[in-house]
């Protein structure tokens, strides 16, 4: 997609940070930002129109996710859903929270704050199932209870896919009472979410990663799973998440999720092809470049590289100059790039991890974008290595 801000044509490779909104979502939300502005909690006919839109959206989301409508909780985003799951479980049940070392900070910082256990990952960034089982038995052996295990379905930096079925088996065996949560924020475009929802208790999604609006998330909370609510107030979302219902956001989220699901298989084919082309274009023409996680083990939308002897900050500047929007690792509050905890947990040596580069693709990515990215990256790396 050739976009433009201040007249520079841009090749956008930062879909994992945020995706452009889908037309379907923009169209769906428009009336609720305009004349259909009512609060669905009211008791007049105007409210009932809004209420119906929210109920339909909830049904639609439940259908896509393979759960009951009553199990869908709308939140302000993936971070809130993660916080709600983790703090909700620990406050309700006490005990120890457990997660993997490669989790998004929205999970990792919660678990660390609660002084929980962090489990090692393998060299692809996927939780080590044996280490998970060992951690669960250690907690049980010291007569403590595991309240929650949180394992991401897809890593947001390197794109590796976690076999959630195996994780679920280990958790059910090692800590039968624990709530199993999965941050599936980066899975929505590339995996069948039903498979994840099926084997877990709580799932987090973020709308803007799949073409919905920012400020919207979904927490699937399976029937019978009790969590203390993170936000209290008017009792919306069946007391699980208070706050005036974001009608436009919910409607747009459902529309985006439906469109994403409808096109998922064909998009995987198309984007998977683009990713192969991108990976081949970069790794075949540059020495000392690692594809951080092999394509077979990562989602089609994330191509992550570790480029030896260059620095991400410098590389991103040159890419930006060349009209390619990409990212490295996560940024701190000041906007500075922080060394990646994911690459560290994977054991990537620093000569390579300093040159981390994430190119994330999505529904607007084109062949022309890929060709442009290859050209600009090759030129930038050659220049930085001079």
């Amino acid at each position, binding site marked *: 997609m050739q976009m433009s801000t201040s007249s520079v044509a841009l090749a956008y490779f930062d879909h994992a940070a945020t995706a452009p909104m889908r037309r379907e979502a923009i169209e769906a939300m428009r009336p609720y930002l305009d004349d259909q502005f009512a609060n669905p909690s009211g008791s007049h006919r105007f409210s009932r129109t809004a209420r119906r839109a929210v109920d339909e959206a909830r049904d639609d989301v439940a259908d896509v996710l393979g759960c009951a409508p009553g199990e869908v909780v709308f939140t302000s985003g993936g971070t809130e859903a993660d916080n709600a799951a983790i703090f909700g479980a620990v406050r309700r049940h006490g005990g120890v929270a457990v997660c993997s070392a490669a989790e998004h900070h929205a999970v990792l910082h919660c678990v660390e704050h609660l002084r929980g256990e962090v489990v090692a990952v393998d060299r692809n960034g996927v939780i080590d199932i044996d280490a998970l089982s060992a951690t669960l038995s250690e907690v049980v052996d010291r007569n403590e209870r595991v309240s929650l295990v949180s394992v991401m379905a897809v890593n947001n930096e390197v794109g590796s896919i976690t076999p959630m079925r195996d994780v679920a088996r280990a958790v059910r065996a090692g800590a039968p009472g624990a709530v199993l949560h999965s941050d599936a924020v980066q899975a929505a475009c590339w995996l069948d979410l039903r498979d994840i929802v099926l084997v877990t208790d709580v799932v987090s999604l973020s709308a803007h990663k799949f073409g919905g609006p920012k400020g919207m998330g979904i927490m699937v909370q399976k029937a019978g799973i009790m969590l203390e609510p993170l936000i209290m107030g008017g009792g919306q979302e069946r007391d699980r998440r208070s706050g005036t219902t974001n009608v436009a956001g919910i409607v747009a989220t459902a529309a985006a999720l439906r469109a994403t699901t409808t096109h998922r298989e064909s998009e995987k084919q198309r984007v998977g092809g683009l990713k192969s082309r991108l990976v081949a274009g970069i790794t075949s023409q540059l020495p000392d470049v690692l594809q951080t996680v092999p394509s077979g083990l990562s989602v089609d939308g994330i191509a992550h590289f570790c480029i030896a002897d260059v620095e991400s*900050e410098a590389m991103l500047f040159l890419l930006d100059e060349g009209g390619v929007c990409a990212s490295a690792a996560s940024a701190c509050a000041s*906007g500075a*790039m922080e*060394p990646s905890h994911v690459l560290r947990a994977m054991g990537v040596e620093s000569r390579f991890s300093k040159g981390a580069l994430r190119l994330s693709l999505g529904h607007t990515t084109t062949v022309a974008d890929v060709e442009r990215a290859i050209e600009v990256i090759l030129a930038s790396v050659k220049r930085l290595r001079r």
Partner: protein
Amino acid sequence: MKVLVAMSGGVDSSVAAAELRREGHDVVGVTMRLWGGESDTGCCSVSDVDDARRVAQQLRIDHLVFNFSEEFNDAVVAPYVDAHRNGDTPNPCIECNRHLKFDRLSQRARLLGFDAVATGHHARIERQPSGVWRVARGADSAKDQSYVVHMLDQRELAYTLFPVGHLTKSQVRERARELGLRTAAKPDSQDVCFISKTGGRETFLGHRIPFRRARVMNESGEQLGEVDAVELVTIGQRRGLRLPGGSPKQFVLDVDVHAGTVVVGDESRLARDVIVVRGMSWSHEPPAVGASVKVQTSAHGATREAVLEEILEEDGRSSARVVLRWREAQRRTAPGQSVVLYDEGDRLVLGGGIAV
């Protein structure tokens, strides 16, 4: 020219960026993230980055953040701690200029295709008729910062711009006000960015090195008292020695961290005829032995006249150590402090190093 301007979030670098923009350069602002730990001094904080970014937006220039916290720790913080461990009194801001602003940052700027790096220092860079570059004192003598940028050599001087060096501080603030920049009235930063106001140097160092008790004695070796942390005692210091009252004012004459002793005595005993400076960096060629120079031994201290008595080799580097003979005896400079040499007219930096 394509210029990368280091924007700390203060008023000087804000106006530096504005001046470059006004002159028609292609300007990009960058804020370096240096200190990763806790701080309450405001420097290097997220709110400073916010200020820098907002000013850049107002000036319609791009703004970047570079994370140099690892290098800052290695090149500035760790040596600062080590220096105290050895009883020296270091100047970390100068080491930051030496290793971060005019080395790491300019290196990266070159790599990214910039023609120059600019900062908001109150100093001027002049090219002599001979083609030699020199740092000259800033137009505002009260705010002159030539002392802290004395280490720039010919290569760096040719690549560096100080766009506010010809302005007084009040002119800088006036320009910032005219442009409506949010930093116009922001107070100058005074403190070391990684030392918190509440905890101070003592807390910072206390978390990093074991303090050793030391005996405080007079020059005849009689013990007068004790201090808890010899690492915090500086030559010339008078307060905080916990000496009994009533006696004449006592100044620290010598500190030996290894022996655990602090020698005190009358102020007159601090007077020295010579000062030895190590780790000299020269803007260009060193002057001839016997040359008369002006010497500054603290950031805003007065300059004194001295004669360059000897130029020596040090660690295999020629001209890296000098012996200066004061025209009139001077109070001893604490080891670790930067000593900067100016020309006879007290305007141009010749070079500088660290007091032994």
